[in-house]
């Protein structure tokens, strides 16, 4: 009772904070972590027991983060979780950097993040005379080229860009494959005869790794080394994923919703527009997301095999000339492309399906 009636002063709140149950625990665990690292370093156990030390450090870190999280008021919890996610990534990168600095990691195969960043910068600003290419196509030269050579100059800039080459291949293939995928998937979802007829064939082709048909595509196109076969393989990969997802999406619509549509007088077109399409939309979009991701995988693989330009080419070429920093930069660019493409689909999803927003 007396504790309650005492006025809250800064000193008192500080006292409370220090004697807080979780904070005491937090102090103990932090001390244990520090002690562990001092002992391991002093006894020179890092060389031999690095994996055990890492594991223990990680576990202690998790406990510290958890204890600390319990101190965070509920309204800052999301912020805390986000910064935890981000700071762990930063922490890993810093460790990597430090390990390379200390020559524990071989900089030749695992170049430090800072040198990868430097390589990424170089790739962006430099023009590769040997391959006649650059990473982004040097967009800052567009005004100058437009002055000098007009449209052809600008086009030439696009043509030299690895990212542009990869993106156009993925997007064209994605669109060319997805549209028939949605149409045929819809037909298969709504008509059981079509489904029965096509299902087995489709499932058989679905399991085939699409990269394996690249040679056939090269034979099928008049220019085997042009864009045609590459885009075709991406399109075929997208087609199967979108078809199967669309079909499932139509099939899993609650039958009572279709009955309600019939009962309330929906004709064929209105049923399609108001019931079937919106009902299948979530599954269609998950198919599209998968197709885009797979498209990126497929195109990088193809660019490894046969391409003069593209981010896959960036990765493989710099491996060939042992410029590992730039190889890593290529990997990083591929990752960013994957994130951006997925994010793009999510934006469209958000706009098209307002009822799915939570």
């Amino acid at each position, binding site marked *: 009772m007396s504790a309650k009636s005492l006025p809250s002063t800064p000193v008192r709140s500080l006292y409370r904070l220090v004697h807080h149950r979780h904070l005491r625990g937090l102090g103990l665990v932090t001390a244990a972590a520090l002690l562990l690292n001092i002992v391991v370093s002093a006894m020179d156990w890092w060389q031999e027991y690095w994996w055990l030390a890492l594991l223990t450090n990680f576990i202690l870190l998790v406990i510290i983060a958890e204890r600390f999280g319990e101190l965070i008021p509920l309204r800052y919890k999301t912020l805390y979780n986000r910064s935890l996610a981000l700071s762990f990534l930063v922490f890993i990168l810093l460790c990597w950097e430090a390990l390379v600095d200390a020559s524990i990691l071989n900089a030749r195969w695992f170049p430090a993040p800072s040198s990868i960043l430097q390589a990424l910068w170089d790739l962006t600003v430099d023009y590769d005379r040997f391959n006649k290419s650059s990473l982004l196509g040097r967009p800052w030269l567009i005004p100058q080229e437009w002055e000098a050579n007009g449209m052809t100059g600008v086009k030439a800039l696009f043509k030299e860009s690895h990212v542009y080459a990869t993106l156009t291949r993925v997007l064209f293939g994605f669109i060319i494959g997805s549209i028939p995928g949605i149409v045929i998937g819809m037909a298969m979802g709504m008509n059981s005869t079509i489904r029965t007829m096509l299902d087995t064939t489709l499932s058989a082709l679905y399991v085939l790794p699409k990269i394996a048909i690249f040679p056939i595509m090269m034979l099928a196109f008049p220019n085997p080394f042009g864009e045609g076969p590459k885009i075709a393989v991406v399109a075929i990969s997208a087609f199967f994923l979108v078809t199967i997802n669309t079909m499932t999406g139509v099939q899993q619509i609650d039958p009572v919703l279709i009955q309600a549509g019939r009962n*309330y007088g929906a004709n064929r077109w209105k049923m399609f527009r108001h019931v079937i399409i919106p009902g299948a939309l979530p599954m269609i979009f998950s198919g599209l997301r998968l197709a885009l991701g797979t498209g990126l995988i497929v195109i990088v693989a193809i660019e490894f095999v046969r391409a003069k330009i593209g981010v896959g080419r960036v990765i493989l070429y710099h491996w060939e000339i042992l410029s590992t920093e730039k190889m890593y930069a290529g990997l990083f660019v591929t990752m960013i492309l994957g994130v951006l493409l997925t994010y793009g689909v999510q934006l469209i999803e958000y706009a098209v399906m307002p009822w799915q927003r939570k």
Partner: protein
Amino acid sequence: MQPKIIARNVVKTYPTKDGDILAVDNLSLEVADGEFVCVVGPSGCGKSTFLRILAGLTPLTSGSVEIIRDAKTKKPLNSMVFQEYAIYPWKTVWDNVAFGLEMRGVPKAERRSRTELWLKRVGLSRFADYYPHQLSGGMKQRVSIARALANDPEVLLMDEPLGALDAQTRLVLQDELLKLWDAERKTVVYVTHSIDEAILLGDRIIIMTAHPGTTKAEFTVEIPRPRTIETTTTAEFAHHKGIIWEALKDEVSRVYGDQA
């Protein structure tokens, strides 16, 4: 009273791998214009199948079903309220209530005023822009009821509309249904497995036999309207309940006997 629904010798069999299964056996029913008929029976007796036949959603094997249309109007024959609500998750409350009107191509101005009216009547005006996932079960079923009534059908068909709701929400909605019906006096066929609900809402109660379903008995509910939830506490109500349970209990125990 002139009849609104005439069902004669309705038979429904479902083909299965082990031969045909008889779901509804020689069921006949006449419903007068403006009458509220409740169909009660043990689960699996084919009462929902019968309702779907009335709605034209399931074809019948033999017999005939007719809903007599009021010659002067162009109302839809029937509108159904489903136990599973069957409202569209991708449509707002407003668009769900307007669904029947939009499907039939009712002009925009009329669609608008009717939707507005029925949202108000079921107390959902404030939620017009909500999506179903933001609503409670009771609110979802109100949307479904408003959709059916906004459609202004000749006959309202209700398939255990309150079956998925909790006991308290169910009481509230029973009360609302009584009020709505007192104002509208539509012809209703209402399928339920609750005797209480049937006595409270119905003018007439049809008891169905256990599988395959046909009519076993029928009772006229003599309790005067307007009724409210308090009606269920009267001696009259208890009297009705006793008689109906007497008729129904054999059928229910037949179902359990089959399962045991």
